[in-house]
């Protein structure tokens, strides 16, 4: 076959590939804006870290301070995999400082007080840090004490799981869950009445343990019960319907309007508040506890919360499109702490970061912001080991698939599983570095 290339053609081909590689490795950066602004970011988790990495390239001379007492950075979406024995506990753990750019200051302390009038934040040791602009991104707190009779020390023993509490507890959860998958009995999977991060996670855990029990050949000896305070299985109606059908196929019993209030670990009995004040007792051999979730105390005590919404949870009062505080225009909320109707996922953080970045830069350079957050929330809903549904939606409960016509959101797919297992952590890390 007369397929020939001369030397020049070959060289230009090689040069072309090299140029392509170089173009990709540096993201287009507009000229950095000079400023003396003092920016304080509370929380160096998913949101705070990603934002800091982007701000250092957008601004020149800004004084950026992050506050976070936590030494470890946690890739929380990995906890579901740890609690199903698919990844080791250290899969989710890195160091907070691993991700922070040069040129920012990290104060390894918690914010203990925010004064939005005098514009300063005080740390637990009493250090006062003045700001021109403040971003609150401290995530949320898990209120385990709200479940009577439950204590984190119990996780892993006597059929008790609680994977939200961190890598150690997620691994202990697997210990209890795998015993149940071997021995069978009654599995009881719960979720709280409050807003929560990754509302798909309680379902994922249920599906995964059901699949593993089936895989071990013990499905016949196990019963699966899913108990939730809400009236439907998921906040987005079309997804709720799909989950209802999957529950039917997989013989998982749904108990709606059931709020876990207490457990009796010795007797392996759970107490649920039902509709109209009734108390329902449910016996279990394995129970998965996800506690109520609230904004950290510092937010609630500083008067940044909504006064009339989520009053028992304290999420930050902010505009749902710009995430700017409604009463203090130098404050933005980012991530789980934001008082917006959807969006407590890392995927949402990825969409919120450019919005807060645009809001801050606009305020600094005196122009109107243009970026708006549409409520984008995503949750690769694992339905079995090896399959998931790539569910993405917005404030209006519309499905907003990233790959329309290619990856069907309501279909259980291997490719969606590959995304969760292979691409999600990588995308998360790239986001932390401000590159995604």
């Amino acid at each position: 076959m007369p397929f020939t290339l001369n030397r020049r053609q070959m060289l230009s081909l090689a040069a072309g590939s090299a140029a392509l590689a170089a173009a990709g490795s540096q993201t287009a950066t507009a000229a950095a804006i000079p400023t003396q602004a003092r920016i304080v970011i509370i929380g160096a988790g998913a949101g705070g870290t990603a934002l800091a990495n982007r701000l250092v390239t957008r601004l020149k001379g800004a004084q950026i301070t992050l506050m976070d007492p936590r030494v470890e950075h946690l890739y929380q979406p990995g906890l579901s995999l740890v609690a199903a024995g698919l990844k080791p506990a250290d899969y989710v753990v890195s160091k907070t400082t691993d991700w922070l750019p040069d040129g920012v200051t990290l104060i390894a302390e918690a914010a203990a007080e925010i004064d939005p009038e005098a514009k300063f934040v005080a740390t637990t040791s009493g250090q006062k840090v003045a700001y021109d602009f403040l971003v609150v991104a401290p995530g949320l707190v898990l209120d385990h004490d709200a479940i009577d009779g439950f204590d984190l020390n119990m996780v892993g023993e006597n059929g008790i799981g609680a994977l939200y509490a961190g890598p150690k507890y997620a691994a202990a959860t697997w210990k209890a869950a795998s015993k149940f998958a071997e021995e069978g009995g009654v599995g009881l999977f719960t979720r709280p009445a409050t807003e929560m991060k990754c509302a798909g996670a309680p379902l994922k855990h249920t599906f995964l343990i059901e699949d593993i029990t089936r895989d071990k050949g013990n499905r016949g000896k196990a019963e699966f019960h899913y108990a939730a305070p809400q009236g439907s299985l998921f906040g987005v109606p079309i997804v709720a319907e799909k989950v209802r059908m999957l529950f039917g196929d997989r013989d998982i019993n749904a108990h709606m309007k059931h709020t876990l209030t207490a457990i009796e670990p010795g007797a392996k009995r759970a107490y649920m508040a039902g509709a109209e004040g009734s108390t329902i007792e449910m016996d279990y051999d394995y129970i998965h506890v996800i506690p109520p979730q609230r904004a950290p105390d510092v937010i609630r005590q500083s008067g940044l919360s909504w006064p009339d919404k989520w009053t028992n949870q304290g999420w930050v009062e902010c505009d749902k499109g710009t995430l700017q505080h409604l009463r203090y225009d130098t404050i933005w909320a980012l991530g789980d702490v934001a008082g917006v109707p959807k969006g407590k996922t890392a995927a949402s953080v990825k969409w919120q970061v450019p919005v807060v970045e645009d809001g801050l830069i606009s305020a600094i350079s005196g122009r109107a912001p243009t970026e708006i957050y549409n409520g984008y929330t995503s949750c690769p809903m694992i339905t079995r080991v090896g399959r998931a549904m790539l569910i993405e939606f917005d404030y209006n409960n519309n499905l907003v698939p990233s790959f329309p016509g290619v990856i069907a959101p309501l279909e259980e797919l291997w490719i969606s599983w590959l995304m969760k297992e292979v691409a999600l952590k990588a995308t998360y890390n790239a986001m932390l570095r401000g590159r995604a």
Partner: protein
Amino acid sequence: MKDMTFGTILAVFEEIFGTGMFWSMVAAALIVTLAYLYVLMRDHSIAWRKFLLAQLSMPVGAVLGVWFVLLMTNSSLNDLGGPVDIIVFLAIAAAGAIGMAILVYTIQSLIRPAAKDRGAQ
């Protein structure tokens, strides 16, 4: 996904494999491709005997490609759930097959240049 630019995709791949590993893999692929183009250029034609062996190696490459993906993930062939899964599966197999064919052809040509090959005929 928001802003799925080429830069984002590269960043994600760097995170999957580690920056060093990823760029070494890119470099390896580039070197094999360049070596392939080099032997084509040098020999001024495709050597069909070598091409035959390369073709025979394709199924091995396909199986290796799929095996690698399954090895790296907690999944099995039973998990293929919809048409897109079949397409992804075939794409992985095709990539493995083509990569293998290019590799085998190039190695043969480098070891046994065209002149010798022709001499043997």
